């Protein structure tokens, strides 16, 4: 009896927060779904008739959509490769005993503390600017023509900026994983005749597999929705060269005031994120099993 009572009481007690959370999540989702089937443009107030899948057809047949998908995948993939490979490299260096380790570690982590808009602006104005930027100055000193990063290679530049932001995260997780490796295993491998490279390849890297999986999964979630960096640097351009799915949805709904198509784009983005998640779990999820 007592347990039944307390269980019922517990349910009643937690109900408000559960309901609130559910509403918080479900209401916007359902409203997005609902809007995606309406002709709903803020520039044309009045009736919002039900139009079926018209918004979806419009969004999916938009030439910008394909570019956006490709850009999204390139952005996610590029940043993942750079941060994982770079993270392993930096973590390996930081794992070496050296003077001033504590200070160096804090400095390595610091990019993570800078908010995305600020870091993207710093990169845009202080490094990549073709007139005043540091890179332009270096090019000038070397006697070369300045390279206009955000115009000539907008997506690659954004990948660079985002990688710079996320490298600390990857480094931190991989460094902790590296430090949890039993040093006797490395010594055993050394006695077994493994060279430094063989020790890295056969012992350290497999030990890092789980941490790499965590890094890839968490980063993918955040990288699929990169927005601020694009907004403050290239505005998705030139043309649609650096538009990803998130930015396309923003452009539809807030630049063209087309709520219906924007909502349809949001639903497409949710589906795409789920597809990516399923593939990721298939590919590397088994690493998470003990």
């Amino acid at each position: 009896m007592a347990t039944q009572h307390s269980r019922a009481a517990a349910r009643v007690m937690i109900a408000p927060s559960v309901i609130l959370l559910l509403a918080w999540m479900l209401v916007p989702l359902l409203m997005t779904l609902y809007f995606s089937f309406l002709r709903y443009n803020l520039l044309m107030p009045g009736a919002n008739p039900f139009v079926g899948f018209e918004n979806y057809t419009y969004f999916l047949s938009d030439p910008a959509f394909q570019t956006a998908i490709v850009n999204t995948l390139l952005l996610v993939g590029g940043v993942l490769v750079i941060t994982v490979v770079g993270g392993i490299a930096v973590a390996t260096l930081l794992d070496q005993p050296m003077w001033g380790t504590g200070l160096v570690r804090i400095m390595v982590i610091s990019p993570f503390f800078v908010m995305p808009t600020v870091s993207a602006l710093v990169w845009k104005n202080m490094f990549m600017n073709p007139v005043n930027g540091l890179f332009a100055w270096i090019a000038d000193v070397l006697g070369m023509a300045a390279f206009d990063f955000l115009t000539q290679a907008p997506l690659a530049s954004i990948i660079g900026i985002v990688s710079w932001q996320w490298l600390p995260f990857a480094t931190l997780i991989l460094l902790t994983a590296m430090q949890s490796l039993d040093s006797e295993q490395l010594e055993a491998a050394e006695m077994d005749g493994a060279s430094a490279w063989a020790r890295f390849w056969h012992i350290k890297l497999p030990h890092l597999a789980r941490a790499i999986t965590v890094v890839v999964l968490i980063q993918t979630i955040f990288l699929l929705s990169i927005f601020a960096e694009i907004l403050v640097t290239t505005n998705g351009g030139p043309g649609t060269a650096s538009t990803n799915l998130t930015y396309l949805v923003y452009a539809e709904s807030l630049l063209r005031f087309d709520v219906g198509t924007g909502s349809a784009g949001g639903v497409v983005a949710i589906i795409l994120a789920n597809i990516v998640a399923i593939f990721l779990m298939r590919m590397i999820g088994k690493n998470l099993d003990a």
Partner: protein
Amino acid sequence: MGRITLDKVQKSFGDVEVIPPLDLEIEDGEFVVFVGPSGCGKSTLLRLIAGLEDVTGGDITIDGTPATDLPPAKRRLAMVFQSYALYPHMSVRKNIAFPMKMAGIPQDEQARRIDNAARVLNLTDYLDRRPGQLSGGQRQRVAIGRAIVREPAAFLFDEPLSNLDAALRVGMRLEISELHKRLATTMIYVTHDQVEAMTMADKIVVLRAGHIEQVGSPLELYRTPRNLFVAGFIGSPRMNFIDGEDASSRGAHTIGVRPEHLAVSDSDGVWRGTVGVAEHLGSDTFFHVHFDGRDEPITVRATGEVALKHGDTVWLTPDEDRIHRFDQQGLRI
């Protein structure tokens, strides 16, 4: 072949000298045990021989070749670690094959050696499992298997049994001893457990604070310990030390009597005391006997079952021929 010579080998970490210059000769095929309390430098000494630590001074020679500056892999030594140090992401077969893969030994030769090692160590059924799926004893055997296939000049064991439970430890002790008889390869074994040292060793090296206190066969150490430390360390339960008048009347500063060299009687004897704790093991009985004017009890072993209990008065008589006498500096007279 595995003849290892240490010549004035010395090791310091910064300003702290862990091992003062030390000489040691290990003959081919010998089972040598380094024993001592924790922190005595026995593991460091083993790691110096393995090459996992660099010597600060002195020379190590393996089979007549200078090995001081050789990397660990080139010294032809195999080591079994306390934590076994198996590679968790590889199957047992791959674990055992790893050193051969690194040495570039052909596949068929690898397979032959793995089968051989698996047979010797009873691992044939487990070759495709991961280390995480094995029991402590099996992991231990995999670690030994990984050492065997390298066909090393000598095996180094760093407290290999300390992670096993008591029953398994006795079993593995026998297995390692048998393995040594079969392979007839030099083995160096580090332990803090003097029972392991006594049961397995051809030669025991007793270490304290980096110094070699005594080197000898188990029975040599038992019969003629060179000083108080060795006398107290070797033998279980430990030797009783008595100083004062009983010692000076025998021409010594301290005398030592092992528990098994004292006769117990309830009527007459040399020393009269009171039974404190009595431990009845069936085969033996251990008494802790208290004396007036003495803080520590004296431990006595009586064979079989003896019906003395707490508070009884008891008489002890030492076997005069087996009393160990030590001078002021704690050295044997």
